[in-house]
Protein backbone atom coordinates (compact mmCIF):
# COMPACT_ATOMS: atom_id res chain seq x y z
CA UNK A 1 0.00 0.00 0.00
CA UNK A 2 1.18 3.50 -0.83
CA UNK A 3 2.51 5.42 2.17
CA UNK A 4 1.43 9.02 2.63
CA UNK A 5 3.92 9.67 5.43
CA UNK A 6 7.36 8.13 5.80
CA UNK A 7 9.54 9.27 8.68
CA UNK A 8 13.01 7.76 8.61
CA UNK A 9 15.53 7.86 11.42
CA UNK A 10 14.23 11.18 12.68
CA UNK A 11 16.21 12.83 15.49
CA UNK A 12 15.47 16.03 17.39
CA UNK A 13 17.67 17.15 20.23
CA UNK A 14 17.04 20.20 22.42
CA UNK A 15 20.30 21.15 24.10
CA UNK A 16 21.11 17.78 25.65
CA UNK A 17 17.57 16.41 25.77
CA UNK A 18 16.74 13.91 23.03
CA UNK A 19 13.09 14.58 22.24
CA UNK A 20 12.91 12.28 19.23
CA UNK A 21 15.36 9.41 18.94
CA UNK A 22 15.83 7.75 15.54
CA UNK A 23 12.10 7.56 15.00
CA UNK A 24 10.65 5.62 12.06
CA UNK A 25 6.99 5.79 11.16
CA UNK A 26 4.84 5.13 8.10
CA UNK A 27 1.23 6.01 7.47
CA UNK A 28 -0.52 4.24 4.58
CA UNK A 29 -2.88 6.16 2.33
CA UNK A 30 -6.51 6.29 3.40
CA UNK A 31 -5.82 5.10 6.94
CA UNK A 32 -6.49 6.67 10.30
CA UNK A 33 -3.34 6.41 12.40
CA UNK A 34 -3.66 6.94 16.13
CA UNK A 35 -0.55 8.46 17.62
CA UNK A 36 -0.23 7.63 21.30
CA UNK A 37 2.31 8.24 23.98
CA UNK A 38 2.70 9.63 27.47
CA UNK A 39 3.39 13.33 28.02
CA UNK A 40 6.87 14.27 26.82
CA UNK A 41 7.17 11.13 24.71
CA UNK A 42 7.86 13.13 21.55
CA UNK A 43 4.44 13.01 19.85
CA UNK A 44 4.03 16.75 19.46
CA UNK A 45 7.64 17.20 18.37
CA UNK A 46 7.11 14.51 15.74
CA UNK A 47 3.91 16.15 14.52
CA UNK A 48 5.58 19.56 14.44
CA UNK A 49 8.44 18.12 12.39
CA UNK A 50 5.91 16.66 9.93
CA UNK A 51 4.47 20.14 9.54
CA UNK A 52 7.88 21.83 9.24
CA UNK A 53 7.36 23.84 12.41
CA UNK A 54 10.45 22.22 13.89
CA UNK A 55 13.56 21.22 12.02
CA UNK A 56 14.96 17.77 12.83
CA UNK A 57 18.66 17.37 13.59
CA UNK A 58 18.79 14.42 11.23
CA UNK A 59 16.60 12.00 9.36
CA UNK A 60 14.17 12.37 6.50
CA UNK A 61 10.49 13.19 6.17
CA UNK A 62 8.61 12.13 3.08
CA UNK A 63 5.00 13.09 2.61
CA UNK A 64 3.07 12.11 -0.53
CA UNK A 65 6.34 10.53 -1.64
CA UNK A 66 8.20 13.86 -1.66
CA UNK A 67 10.83 15.21 0.67
CA UNK A 68 9.38 17.81 3.04
CA UNK A 69 12.66 19.70 2.98
CA UNK A 70 12.61 20.02 -0.80
CA UNK A 71 8.88 20.36 -1.60
CA UNK A 72 7.63 22.00 1.58
CA UNK A 73 5.07 24.36 0.05
CA UNK A 74 3.70 21.78 -2.36
CA UNK A 75 3.23 19.29 0.49
CA UNK A 76 1.74 21.76 2.97
CA UNK A 77 -0.81 22.82 0.34
CA UNK A 78 -2.31 19.38 0.81
CA UNK A 79 -2.24 19.12 4.61
CA UNK A 80 -4.82 20.34 7.07
CA UNK A 81 -3.93 20.43 10.73
CA UNK A 82 -4.82 21.30 14.27
CA UNK A 83 -1.84 21.63 16.56
CA UNK A 84 -2.52 21.32 20.27
CA UNK A 85 -5.04 24.12 20.72
CA UNK A 86 -7.20 26.11 18.37
CA UNK A 87 -5.89 29.66 18.06
CA UNK A 88 -7.43 32.27 15.83
CA UNK A 89 -7.57 35.99 15.26
CA UNK A 90 -9.93 36.73 18.12
CA UNK A 91 -10.92 40.15 16.82
CA UNK A 92 -12.29 38.62 13.60
CA UNK A 93 -15.38 36.51 12.99
CA UNK A 94 -15.14 32.76 12.49
CA UNK A 95 -16.10 33.17 8.84
CA UNK A 96 -13.43 35.82 8.29
CA UNK A 97 -10.83 33.63 10.01
CA UNK A 98 -11.72 30.75 7.69
CA UNK A 99 -11.56 33.05 4.69
CA UNK A 100 -8.09 34.27 5.70
CA UNK A 101 -6.77 30.77 6.33
CA UNK A 102 -8.15 29.62 2.99
CA UNK A 103 -6.39 32.50 1.26
CA UNK A 104 -3.22 31.64 3.13
CA UNK A 105 -3.63 28.16 1.67
CA UNK A 106 -3.67 29.71 -1.79
CA UNK A 107 -7.36 29.26 -2.49
CA UNK A 108 -10.09 31.83 -2.90
CA UNK A 109 -12.97 30.50 -0.86
CA UNK A 110 -16.48 30.89 -2.26
CA UNK A 111 -19.44 31.55 0.01
CA UNK A 112 -20.61 28.01 -0.70
CA UNK A 113 -17.29 26.51 0.41
CA UNK A 114 -17.38 28.49 3.64
CA UNK A 115 -21.04 27.65 4.28
CA UNK A 116 -20.37 23.95 3.76
CA UNK A 117 -17.45 23.71 6.13
CA UNK A 118 -19.19 25.87 8.75
CA UNK A 119 -22.23 23.61 8.60
CA UNK A 120 -20.04 20.51 8.70
CA UNK A 121 -18.55 21.49 12.07
CA UNK A 122 -21.84 22.75 13.48
CA UNK A 123 -21.09 26.47 13.68
CA UNK A 124 -23.92 27.62 11.45
CA UNK A 125 -25.60 30.67 12.95
CA UNK A 126 -22.54 31.66 14.97
CA UNK A 127 -20.11 32.06 12.08
CA UNK A 128 -20.36 35.84 11.93
CA UNK A 129 -19.65 36.24 15.65
CA UNK A 130 -16.16 37.27 16.69
CA UNK A 131 -14.03 34.34 17.81
CA UNK A 132 -13.35 36.06 21.14
CA UNK A 133 -16.96 35.25 22.08
CA UNK A 134 -16.46 31.53 21.38
CA UNK A 135 -16.15 28.76 23.97
CA UNK A 136 -13.15 26.43 23.79
CA UNK A 137 -15.28 23.74 22.19
CA UNK A 138 -16.48 26.13 19.49
CA UNK A 139 -12.91 27.18 18.78
CA UNK A 140 -12.00 23.51 18.48
CA UNK A 141 -14.78 23.06 15.91
CA UNK A 142 -13.52 26.10 14.06
CA UNK A 143 -10.03 24.56 14.19
CA UNK A 144 -11.37 21.51 12.42
CA UNK A 145 -13.07 23.74 9.86
CA UNK A 146 -9.82 25.56 9.07
CA UNK A 147 -8.06 22.21 8.71
CA UNK A 148 -10.62 21.15 6.10
CA UNK A 149 -11.28 24.41 4.26
CA UNK A 150 -8.72 23.76 1.53
CA UNK A 151 -9.79 20.14 1.06
CA UNK A 152 -6.45 18.53 1.97
CA UNK A 153 -5.68 14.83 1.44
CA UNK A 154 -3.81 14.51 4.72
CA UNK A 155 -5.25 15.72 7.99
CA UNK A 156 -3.11 15.90 11.11
CA UNK A 157 -5.04 16.41 14.32
CA UNK A 158 -3.14 16.89 17.55
CA UNK A 159 -5.51 16.46 20.49
CA UNK A 160 -8.61 17.53 18.53
CA UNK A 161 -11.12 16.44 21.17
CA UNK A 162 -9.74 18.70 23.90
CA UNK A 163 -12.53 20.93 25.16
CA UNK A 164 -15.26 19.25 23.15
CA UNK A 165 -18.46 18.16 24.90
CA UNK A 166 -19.57 14.50 24.54
CA UNK A 167 -21.73 15.33 21.53
CA UNK A 168 -18.82 17.24 19.99
CA UNK A 169 -16.55 14.21 20.46
CA UNK A 170 -19.10 11.93 18.79
CA UNK A 171 -19.55 14.44 15.95
CA UNK A 172 -15.80 14.66 15.44
CA UNK A 173 -15.44 10.90 15.49
CA UNK A 174 -18.14 10.58 12.84
CA UNK A 175 -16.58 13.37 10.81
CA UNK A 176 -13.16 11.71 10.82
CA UNK A 177 -14.68 8.38 9.80
CA UNK A 178 -16.68 10.14 7.09
CA UNK A 179 -13.53 11.83 5.77
CA UNK A 180 -11.77 8.49 5.62
CA UNK A 181 -14.60 6.38 4.25
CA UNK A 182 -16.19 8.81 1.80
CA UNK A 183 -13.27 10.98 0.75
CA UNK A 184 -10.38 8.58 1.28
CA UNK A 185 -8.49 11.09 3.42
CA UNK A 186 -5.52 10.01 5.47
CA UNK A 187 -5.74 11.08 9.10
CA UNK A 188 -3.07 11.21 11.79
CA UNK A 189 -4.76 11.57 15.13
CA UNK A 190 -2.89 12.21 18.32
CA UNK A 191 -5.03 11.92 21.42
CA UNK A 192 -4.88 11.22 25.11
CA UNK A 193 -8.34 9.70 24.95
CA UNK A 194 -7.29 6.15 24.19
CA UNK A 195 -10.85 4.91 23.74
CA UNK A 196 -11.23 7.37 20.87
CA UNK A 197 -8.20 5.94 19.12
CA UNK A 198 -9.45 2.44 19.77
CA UNK A 199 -12.81 3.32 18.24
CA UNK A 200 -11.72 5.01 15.04
CA UNK A 201 -8.08 4.27 14.25
CA UNK A 202 -7.11 1.60 11.73
CA UNK A 203 -3.59 1.49 13.04
CA UNK A 204 -1.69 3.01 15.90
CA UNK A 205 1.79 3.95 16.87
CA UNK A 206 2.84 4.27 20.46
CA UNK A 207 5.71 6.68 20.96
CA UNK A 208 7.73 6.39 24.12
CA UNK A 209 10.95 8.20 24.99
CA UNK A 210 11.22 9.59 21.49
CA UNK A 211 10.94 6.23 19.74
CA UNK A 212 8.12 4.27 18.20
CA UNK A 213 7.61 1.51 20.73
CA UNK A 214 5.13 -0.29 18.52
CA UNK A 215 3.20 0.33 15.33
CA UNK A 216 0.55 -1.80 13.67
CA UNK A 217 -3.15 -2.45 13.12
CA UNK A 218 -5.12 -1.80 16.29
CA UNK A 219 -6.89 -5.18 16.25
CA UNK A 220 -3.72 -7.12 15.52
CA UNK A 221 -1.77 -5.40 18.26
CA UNK A 222 -4.48 -5.87 20.86
CA UNK A 223 -5.15 -9.50 19.92
CA UNK A 224 -1.61 -10.45 20.84
CA UNK A 225 -2.24 -9.25 24.34
CA UNK A 226 -3.59 -11.21 27.33
CA UNK A 227 -6.98 -10.22 28.62
CA UNK A 228 -7.62 -8.71 31.97
CA UNK A 229 -10.18 -10.98 33.69
CA UNK A 230 -12.15 -9.68 36.67
CA UNK A 231 -13.72 -12.23 39.05
CA UNK A 232 -16.29 -10.95 41.56
CA UNK A 233 -17.09 -13.70 44.09
CA UNK A 234 -19.57 -13.89 46.95
CA UNK A 235 -16.69 -14.68 49.30
CA UNK A 236 -13.43 -13.00 48.35
CA UNK A 237 -11.36 -14.92 50.95
CA UNK A 238 -12.55 -18.25 49.56
CA UNK A 239 -11.65 -17.19 46.01
CA UNK A 240 -8.26 -15.98 47.14
CA UNK A 241 -7.51 -19.27 48.91
CA UNK A 242 -8.74 -21.33 45.96
CA UNK A 243 -6.58 -19.44 43.49
CA UNK A 244 -3.55 -19.57 45.81
CA UNK A 245 -3.51 -23.35 45.48
CA UNK A 246 -3.89 -23.36 41.72
CA UNK A 247 -1.95 -22.84 38.52
CA UNK A 248 -3.70 -19.42 38.21
CA UNK A 249 -1.80 -18.00 41.15
CA UNK A 250 0.92 -16.63 38.87
CA UNK A 251 -1.69 -14.79 36.77
CA UNK A 252 -2.98 -12.63 39.59
CA UNK A 253 -2.72 -8.93 38.89
CA UNK A 254 -4.63 -7.34 41.72
CA UNK A 255 -6.86 -8.11 44.66
CA UNK A 256 -9.30 -5.74 46.27
CA UNK A 257 -12.30 -5.98 48.61
CA UNK A 258 -14.72 -7.25 46.00
CA UNK A 259 -12.77 -8.69 43.11
CA UNK A 260 -9.57 -10.30 41.88
CA UNK A 261 -8.13 -9.59 38.46
CA UNK A 262 -6.01 -12.02 36.46
CA UNK A 263 -4.18 -11.70 33.19
CA UNK A 264 -5.11 -14.62 30.94
CA UNK A 265 -5.50 -15.58 27.34
CA UNK A 266 -9.07 -15.94 26.14
CA UNK A 267 -8.63 -19.72 25.71
CA UNK A 268 -7.81 -20.17 29.38
CA UNK A 269 -11.09 -18.69 30.65
CA UNK A 270 -13.29 -21.86 30.33
CA UNK A 271 -10.71 -23.87 32.30
CA UNK A 272 -10.68 -21.22 35.01
CA UNK A 273 -14.50 -21.26 35.27
CA UNK A 274 -14.47 -25.07 35.50
CA UNK A 275 -11.82 -24.98 38.23
CA UNK A 276 -13.80 -22.45 40.27
CA UNK A 277 -17.02 -24.44 39.84
CA UNK A 278 -15.29 -27.67 40.94
CA UNK A 279 -14.03 -25.86 44.05
CA UNK A 280 -17.51 -24.50 44.75
CA UNK A 281 -16.56 -20.86 44.48
CA UNK A 282 -19.77 -18.92 43.98
CA UNK A 283 -19.56 -15.90 41.74
CA UNK A 284 -21.50 -12.71 41.21
CA UNK A 285 -19.73 -12.06 37.89
CA UNK A 286 -16.74 -12.83 35.73
CA UNK A 287 -15.83 -10.48 32.94
CA UNK A 288 -12.85 -9.68 30.79
CA UNK A 289 -11.47 -6.50 29.30
CA UNK A 290 -9.24 -6.03 26.27
CA UNK A 291 -8.40 -2.36 26.47
CA UNK A 292 -5.98 -0.18 24.66
CA UNK A 293 -5.42 1.55 27.97
CA UNK A 294 -3.92 -1.61 29.48
CA UNK A 295 -1.80 -2.20 26.43
CA UNK A 296 -0.65 1.39 26.43
CA UNK A 297 0.24 1.38 30.11
CA UNK A 298 2.04 -1.93 29.83
CA UNK A 299 4.13 -0.66 26.94
CA UNK A 300 4.93 2.75 28.29
CA UNK A 301 5.64 1.63 31.85
CA UNK A 302 7.91 -1.24 30.89
Amino acid at each position, binding site marked *: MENVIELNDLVKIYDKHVAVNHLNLTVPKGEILGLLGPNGAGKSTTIRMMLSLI*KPNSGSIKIFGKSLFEKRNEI*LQNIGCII*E*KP*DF*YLYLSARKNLELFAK*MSKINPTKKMLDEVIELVGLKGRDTDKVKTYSHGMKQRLGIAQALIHNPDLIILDEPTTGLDPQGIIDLRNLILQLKNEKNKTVVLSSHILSEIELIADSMAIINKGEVAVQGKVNELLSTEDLLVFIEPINIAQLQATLANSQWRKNEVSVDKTQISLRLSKEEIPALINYLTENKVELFAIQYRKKLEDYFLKLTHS
Partner: protein
Amino acid sequence: MLQLTLVELYKIITKPRSYIGFLAVTVVILLIQFALYLQGDNYINFVFQNLQQTFVMQGNILNGNQICFIILQTLIMQMPLMVALVTGDLISGEAATGTIRLLTTRPFSRIQILLSKYFAGTIYTVCLVAWLGLLALGLSRLIFGDGDIIVIKSESLIILRSTDVLWRFMFAFLIAIVSLVVISSFSMMLSCFTDNSIGPIIISMSVIIVFTIIGTIEVPIFDYIKPFLFTTHMIIWRNLFDNPLDKKQIMESLSVLVFHIAAFLGISLYHFNNKDIQS
Protein backbone atom coordinates in the same frame (compact mmCIF):
# COMPACT_ATOMS: atom_id res chain seq x y z
CA MET B 1 2.88 36.49 -2.10
CA LEU B 2 0.60 39.41 -3.01
CA GLN B 3 -2.34 37.56 -1.50
CA LEU B 4 -0.36 36.89 1.66
CA THR B 5 0.60 40.58 1.90
CA LEU B 6 -3.06 41.56 1.46
CA VAL B 7 -4.02 39.14 4.23
CA GLU B 8 -1.39 40.70 6.47
CA LEU B 9 -2.65 44.17 5.63
CA TYR B 10 -6.18 43.07 6.41
CA LYS B 11 -5.00 41.84 9.82
CA ILE B 12 -3.37 45.20 10.52
CA ILE B 13 -6.42 47.13 9.37
CA THR B 14 -8.80 45.13 11.55
CA LYS B 15 -6.63 45.36 14.65
CA PRO B 16 -7.76 48.21 16.94
CA ARG B 17 -4.20 49.07 18.04
CA SER B 18 -3.32 50.01 14.44
CA TYR B 19 -5.45 53.12 14.83
CA ILE B 20 -3.69 54.41 17.93
CA GLY B 21 -0.96 55.99 15.77
CA PHE B 22 -3.47 57.64 13.44
CA LEU B 23 -5.50 58.86 16.38
CA ALA B 24 -2.44 60.26 18.18
CA VAL B 25 -1.19 62.04 15.04
CA THR B 26 -4.64 63.50 14.41
CA VAL B 27 -5.10 64.68 18.00
CA VAL B 28 -1.63 66.25 18.27
CA ILE B 29 -1.87 68.04 14.90
CA LEU B 30 -5.38 69.31 15.50
CA LEU B 31 -4.34 70.53 18.95
CA ILE B 32 -1.33 72.40 17.55
CA GLN B 33 -3.42 73.89 14.75
CA PHE B 34 -6.21 74.85 17.16
CA ALA B 35 -3.77 76.48 19.58
CA LEU B 36 -1.96 78.38 16.82
CA TYR B 37 -5.25 79.46 15.28
CA LEU B 38 -6.27 81.02 18.58
CA GLN B 39 -2.93 82.30 19.87
CA GLY B 40 -0.57 82.00 16.91
CA ASP B 41 0.53 85.63 17.10
CA ASN B 42 1.77 85.18 20.67
CA TYR B 43 3.70 82.09 19.59
CA ILE B 44 5.29 83.89 16.62
CA ASN B 45 6.21 86.88 18.78
CA PHE B 46 7.82 84.54 21.32
CA VAL B 47 9.78 82.50 18.76
CA PHE B 48 10.92 85.40 16.64
CA GLN B 49 11.29 88.05 19.37
CA ASN B 50 15.04 88.45 18.81
CA LEU B 51 14.60 88.69 15.04
CA GLN B 52 11.90 91.31 15.36
CA GLN B 53 14.41 93.62 17.03
CA THR B 54 16.68 93.40 13.97
CA PHE B 55 14.29 92.78 11.04
CA VAL B 56 10.99 94.15 9.93
CA MET B 57 8.80 91.09 9.53
CA GLN B 58 5.91 91.41 7.13
CA GLY B 59 3.42 89.09 5.50
CA ASN B 60 1.73 85.87 6.59
CA ILE B 61 4.39 84.45 8.91
CA LEU B 62 2.02 82.03 10.59
CA ASN B 63 1.21 80.20 7.38
CA GLY B 64 0.48 76.54 6.61
CA ASN B 65 4.05 75.75 5.56
CA GLN B 66 5.51 77.21 8.75
CA ILE B 67 2.99 75.34 10.88
CA CYS B 68 3.77 72.08 9.06
CA PHE B 69 7.46 72.66 9.80
CA ILE B 70 6.64 73.23 13.48
CA ILE B 71 4.47 70.09 13.60
CA LEU B 72 7.18 67.96 11.98
CA GLN B 73 9.74 69.10 14.53
CA THR B 74 7.33 68.30 17.33
CA LEU B 75 5.97 65.01 16.10
CA ILE B 76 8.53 63.25 13.99
CA MET B 77 10.45 61.74 16.91
CA GLN B 78 7.23 60.37 18.40
CA MET B 79 6.19 58.65 15.19
CA PRO B 80 8.60 55.71 15.67
CA LEU B 81 6.82 54.79 18.88
CA MET B 82 3.52 54.59 17.02
CA VAL B 83 5.04 52.46 14.27
CA ALA B 84 6.69 50.09 16.77
CA LEU B 85 3.32 49.57 18.42
CA VAL B 86 2.13 47.79 15.29
CA THR B 87 5.26 46.31 13.72
CA GLY B 88 6.69 45.03 17.02
CA ASP B 89 3.65 42.80 17.28
CA LEU B 90 3.68 41.34 13.78
CA ILE B 91 5.49 38.09 14.58
CA SER B 92 5.51 37.90 18.37
CA GLY B 93 1.79 38.75 18.48
CA GLU B 94 1.09 35.69 16.35
CA ALA B 95 3.39 33.63 18.55
CA ALA B 96 1.68 34.88 21.72
CA THR B 97 -1.79 34.01 20.41
CA GLY B 98 -0.65 30.75 18.84
CA THR B 99 -1.76 31.64 15.30
CA ILE B 100 1.88 31.43 14.22
CA ARG B 101 1.47 27.63 14.14
CA LEU B 102 -1.33 27.83 11.61
CA LEU B 103 0.39 30.58 9.67
CA THR B 104 3.68 28.70 9.29
CA THR B 105 1.99 25.47 8.21
CA ARG B 106 0.53 27.18 5.14
CA PRO B 107 2.10 26.62 1.73
CA PHE B 108 4.33 29.66 1.87
CA SER B 109 7.99 29.68 2.82
CA ARG B 110 8.97 31.36 6.07
CA ILE B 111 10.78 34.00 4.03
CA GLN B 112 7.59 34.76 2.10
CA ILE B 113 5.63 34.95 5.34
CA LEU B 114 8.11 37.34 6.93
CA LEU B 115 8.43 39.49 3.80
CA SER B 116 4.65 39.75 3.46
CA LYS B 117 4.51 41.00 7.05
CA TYR B 118 7.39 43.36 6.35
CA PHE B 119 5.66 44.78 3.26
CA ALA B 120 2.38 45.13 5.15
CA GLY B 121 4.21 46.92 7.98
CA THR B 122 5.90 49.19 5.44
CA ILE B 123 2.57 50.03 3.80
CA TYR B 124 1.17 50.84 7.24
CA THR B 125 4.16 53.13 7.85
CA VAL B 126 3.67 54.88 4.50
CA CYS B 127 -0.02 55.39 5.29
CA LEU B 128 0.83 56.86 8.69
CA VAL B 129 3.31 59.31 7.16
CA ALA B 130 0.83 60.14 4.38
CA TRP B 131 -1.80 60.89 7.02
CA LEU B 132 0.73 63.05 8.85
CA GLY B 133 1.47 64.89 5.60
CA LEU B 134 -2.17 65.34 4.76
CA LEU B 135 -3.00 66.85 8.12
CA ALA B 136 0.23 68.70 8.85
CA LEU B 137 0.74 70.18 5.40
CA GLY B 138 -2.61 69.88 3.59
CA LEU B 139 -4.91 70.95 6.41
CA SER B 140 -2.49 73.60 7.70
CA ARG B 141 -2.26 75.20 4.25
CA LEU B 142 -6.03 75.02 3.96
CA ILE B 143 -6.56 76.77 7.29
CA PHE B 144 -3.57 79.12 7.45
CA GLY B 145 -2.78 79.65 3.77
CA ASP B 146 0.46 79.54 1.80
CA GLY B 147 3.66 81.40 2.76
CA ASP B 148 7.41 81.40 3.26
CA ILE B 149 9.18 79.38 5.94
CA ILE B 150 11.61 80.92 8.39
CA VAL B 151 14.11 78.37 9.69
CA ILE B 152 16.19 79.50 12.64
CA LYS B 153 19.50 77.68 12.97
CA SER B 154 22.04 78.18 15.73
CA GLU B 155 24.23 80.33 13.50
CA SER B 156 21.98 81.34 10.64
CA LEU B 157 18.55 82.30 9.51
CA ILE B 158 17.07 80.71 6.41
CA ILE B 159 14.07 82.01 4.60
CA LEU B 160 12.56 79.62 2.09
CA ARG B 161 10.14 80.98 -0.48
CA SER B 162 6.72 79.37 -0.57
CA THR B 163 7.40 78.24 -4.14
CA ASP B 164 10.51 76.44 -2.91
CA VAL B 165 9.10 74.43 0.01
CA LEU B 166 6.68 71.84 -1.35
CA TRP B 167 9.36 69.59 -2.85
CA ARG B 168 11.32 69.90 0.40
CA PHE B 169 8.33 68.68 2.37
CA MET B 170 7.82 65.79 -0.06
CA PHE B 171 11.43 64.67 0.39
CA ALA B 172 11.16 65.21 4.15
CA PHE B 173 8.20 62.84 4.21
CA LEU B 174 10.12 60.33 2.09
CA ILE B 175 13.02 60.44 4.53
CA ALA B 176 10.52 60.07 7.36
CA ILE B 177 9.23 56.92 5.67
CA VAL B 178 12.76 55.50 5.34
CA SER B 179 13.46 56.38 8.99
CA LEU B 180 10.28 54.74 10.17
CA VAL B 181 10.96 51.65 8.06
CA VAL B 182 14.21 51.35 10.05
CA ILE B 183 12.06 51.29 13.19
CA SER B 184 9.60 48.81 11.73
CA SER B 185 12.48 46.54 10.64
CA PHE B 186 14.11 46.84 14.05
CA SER B 187 10.94 46.08 15.99
CA MET B 188 10.06 43.24 13.64
CA MET B 189 13.53 41.76 14.15
CA LEU B 190 12.97 41.82 17.91
CA SER B 191 9.55 40.35 17.28
CA CYS B 192 11.15 37.30 15.64
CA PHE B 193 13.18 36.54 18.75
CA THR B 194 10.36 36.34 21.26
CA ASP B 195 6.92 34.88 21.79
CA ASN B 196 5.92 37.81 23.94
CA SER B 197 3.75 40.42 22.26
CA ILE B 198 4.68 43.41 24.40
CA GLY B 199 8.44 42.83 24.74
CA PRO B 200 9.53 43.94 21.25
CA ILE B 201 7.35 47.06 21.46
CA ILE B 202 8.81 48.11 24.82
CA ILE B 203 12.39 47.30 23.78
CA SER B 204 11.97 49.25 20.51
CA MET B 205 10.61 52.25 22.37
CA SER B 206 13.38 52.05 24.99
CA VAL B 207 16.11 51.84 22.35
CA ILE B 208 14.69 54.84 20.48
CA ILE B 209 14.51 56.87 23.69
CA VAL B 210 18.04 55.90 24.82
CA PHE B 211 19.56 56.53 21.37
CA THR B 212 17.78 59.87 21.11
CA ILE B 213 19.07 60.92 24.52
CA ILE B 214 22.62 59.88 23.59
CA GLY B 215 22.24 61.84 20.36
CA THR B 216 21.08 64.93 22.18
CA ILE B 217 23.63 65.05 25.01
CA GLU B 218 26.73 67.00 24.01
CA VAL B 219 29.37 64.84 25.71
CA PRO B 220 32.53 64.12 23.68
CA ILE B 221 32.53 60.40 24.46
CA PHE B 222 29.15 60.02 22.76
CA ASP B 223 30.47 61.68 19.61
CA TYR B 224 32.14 58.39 18.66
CA ILE B 225 28.88 56.49 19.01
CA LYS B 226 26.46 58.96 17.43
CA PRO B 227 27.27 58.22 13.75
CA PHE B 228 26.38 54.57 14.31
CA LEU B 229 22.99 55.22 15.90
CA PHE B 230 20.10 55.15 13.47
CA THR B 231 18.31 57.83 15.45
CA THR B 232 21.13 60.27 14.57
CA HIS B 233 20.30 59.86 10.90
CA MET B 234 16.54 59.87 11.33
CA ILE B 235 16.54 63.63 11.86
CA ILE B 236 18.31 64.30 8.57
CA TRP B 237 14.98 65.48 7.12
CA ARG B 238 15.75 68.84 8.78
CA ASN B 239 18.70 69.29 6.42
CA LEU B 240 16.23 69.52 3.55
CA PHE B 241 15.31 72.94 4.86
CA ASP B 242 18.90 74.19 4.58
CA ASN B 243 19.98 76.51 1.85
CA PRO B 244 22.18 75.43 0.14
CA LEU B 245 21.42 71.75 0.59
CA ASP B 246 24.12 69.50 1.98
CA LYS B 247 23.30 66.67 -0.43
CA LYS B 248 26.33 64.63 0.60
CA GLN B 249 25.27 64.57 4.24
CA ILE B 250 21.70 63.68 3.30
CA MET B 251 22.83 60.84 1.05
CA GLU B 252 25.22 59.55 3.71
CA SER B 253 22.49 59.47 6.32
CA LEU B 254 20.07 57.83 3.92
CA SER B 255 22.70 55.17 3.17
CA VAL B 256 23.16 54.49 6.88
CA LEU B 257 19.40 54.16 7.31
CA VAL B 258 19.10 51.80 4.33
CA PHE B 259 22.02 49.76 5.70
CA HIS B 260 20.19 49.43 9.02
CA ILE B 261 17.03 48.29 7.23
CA ALA B 262 18.98 45.66 5.29
CA ALA B 263 20.79 44.45 8.40
CA PHE B 264 17.65 44.20 10.56
CA LEU B 265 15.72 42.51 7.79
CA GLY B 266 18.57 40.09 7.07
CA ILE B 267 18.82 39.05 10.71
CA SER B 268 15.03 38.66 10.88
CA LEU B 269 14.92 36.49 7.78
CA TYR B 270 17.77 34.27 8.93
CA HIS B 271 16.41 33.79 12.42
CA PHE B 272 12.77 33.31 11.45
CA ASN B 273 13.68 30.87 8.69
CA ASN B 274 15.63 28.67 11.10
CA LYS B 275 13.46 29.09 14.14
CA ASP B 276 11.64 26.15 15.73
CA ILE B 277 8.03 27.15 16.29
CA GLN B 278 7.40 25.99 19.84
CA SER B 279 4.56 28.25 20.89
